[in-house]
């Protein structure tokens, strides 16, 4: 009886095991096409039909950039750029070609060359419905809920704002304001103009609640600090000249009281000036013009796009790759 029970148990176990193998094998066969770990090349979205002449651009040291080239048509006319970027997706790296117009900002098309995303989900990044939304828009791009694209590799705005050999300022007019009025009721603001990658103008001012500017009040004698000393506007202009000369705030060394002895004739508190200049430099390095400092929820320079539903990581990989390509080609175009 006991032996029969054991034999029955062994037979039952054998049957269950065989069935299990059959089920697993059948599952493998059924899901083979959908779960292929090999890279897939795009079939729906192809490279643009026009053939271009390519002039390679050096990408050595550029993280996430595999190749880049200047595009010329058959007549030899410069028509834009193409950057091959690689970015981590959900299943592996996504490799894409991002085509830019001659301004190195407008995206003409995006082509997914390789990816390992989940079939029928993340793989939708190669479908025209997703890719066509990039045609003709300006970079950088983002989708809802995503952090705004930042070009600087460091998250510290102070560190990012001090121009180094690798920081490129984008031409434009940048306006920044303090987050709040000071204890005397003045709201400080700064306008910085960048031309050909260099700061050419800095205007620092502040406005009270009556709408009167300190520069005006000091000029007409209604805002006097110390008799005989330069007016507030003259001191603000001196600070601005120092920034233009040094192309940074390095020439202004702050003490514990927020003042500086670095600039001749300047005795006013300059900490908020330095703060606004550095915020302006951050905006200039991102190309985000006419934006106020402080909490920024939307950058006018960034274009909002739609992500693939339920494939956030794949979509984010694409967006990051496109923005990385944009940063690279913008840096190249500004520096050439």
């Amino acid at each position, binding site marked *: 009886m006991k032996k029969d029970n054991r034999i029955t148990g062994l037979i039952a*176990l054998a049957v269950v095991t065989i069935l299990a193998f059959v089920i697993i094998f059948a599952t493998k066969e*059924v899901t083979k096409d*959908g779960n292929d770990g090999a890279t897939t090349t795009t079939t729906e979205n192809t490279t643009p039909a026009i053939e271009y002449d390519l002039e390679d651009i050096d990408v050595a040291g550029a993280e996430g950039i595999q190749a880049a080239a200047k595009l010329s048509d058959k007549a030899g006319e410069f028509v834009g750029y193409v950057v091959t970027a690689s970015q981590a997706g959900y*299943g592996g790296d996504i490799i894409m070609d991002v085509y830019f117009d001659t301004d190195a900002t407008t995206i003409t098309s995006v082509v997914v060359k390789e990816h390992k995303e*989940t079939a029928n989900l993340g793989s939708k990044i190669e479908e025209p419905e997703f890719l066509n939304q990039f045609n003709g828009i300006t970079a950088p791009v983002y989708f809802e809920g995503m952090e705004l694209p930042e070009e600087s590799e460091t998250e510290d705005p102070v560190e990012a704002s001090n121009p180094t050999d690798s920081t490129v300022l984008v031409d434009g007019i940048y306006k920044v304001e303090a987050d709040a009025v000071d204890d005397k009721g003045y709201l400080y603001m700064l306008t910085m103009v960048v031309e050909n990658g260099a700061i050419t103008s800095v205007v620092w001012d502040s406005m009270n609640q009556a709408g009167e500017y300190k520069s005006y009040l000091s000029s007409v004698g209604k805002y006097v600090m110390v008799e005989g000393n330069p007016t507030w506007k003259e001191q603000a202009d001196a600070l601005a000249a120092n920034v233009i000369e040094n192309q940074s705030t390095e020439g202004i060394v702050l003490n514990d009281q927020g003042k500086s002895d670095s600039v001749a004739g300047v005795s006013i508190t300059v900490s908020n000036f330095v703060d606004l200049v550095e915020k302006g430099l951050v905006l200039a390095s991102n190309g985000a013009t006419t934006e106020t400092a402080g909490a920024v929820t939307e950058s006018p320079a960034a274009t909002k796009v739609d992500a693939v539903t339920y494939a956030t*990581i794949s979509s984010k990989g694409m967006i990051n790759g496109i923005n990385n390509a944009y940063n690279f080609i913008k840096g190249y175009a500004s520096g050439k």
Partner: protein
Amino acid sequence: MKIKYPIEAFALAMILFSKNMKEALITGILIVFLTTLGWVVKDCLGHIKLGLLRISVFISVMSVGYAVFQIVFIKIVPMEMNTTIMLLQLMIGLLIVKHLLTKDAEENVNVMLYESAIAFACFIVIGMIREFCAIGSIFGFKIADLSFMTENFQSIMIGFLFAGAALALVNAIIKKRVYSLNSLLVIVPVVLAFRPFELNDVGDIINFVIGIFIPIFIIVSIRYKLIFSSLGNAFKKLPIELISIGIVYMILTAF
């Protein structure tokens, strides 16, 4: 009274697959299906030797579990799938097998199914809430776009919090409490798959070890303190430990 539904399997599933209502619905169905299948195999082979019975239940539930998760998640209702997710789905199957083979496992399938149904309902509800709070939609249909909505509602740390709360709700409805389950069986696989932080400029192995050791060490320490806390019966053991690890994840993720 003791819990008769596979609470650990539901806990792991709620943490991982309640990001949206569709995922929650499908995973809940598969858990109930696998639990019932395992119970049927166990009942049919109940007369054989215990060791052989256990192996048979293990093989049948794990193989069918692998098959259904793969087919459903890849072919029928495509969702994000990779090796990590597959291993975690196998872990869910393992927890179902563990539940079925404990000596306290319910002989009456009706009780087990009733409690599983309550857990399933709560699973769907938290999936709905998380999806709405994250992207303002329910089952993929956009409902609203409010200022508080953020993708972080679909993160693992929120998964822990919602899973703990949902299980507490289930236990309160069925008026039972957890007695002797080891929450580490649920927490450790998630920590292995989704570490709360990464260390830069250290080796991959050191990064991996530290990223796993610290959260587990913290939750083990917290468990001893929780023994002495006065909580409602519904929250005791697994639910409150999941909520605690969720808070730990929140803190560690900040780094």
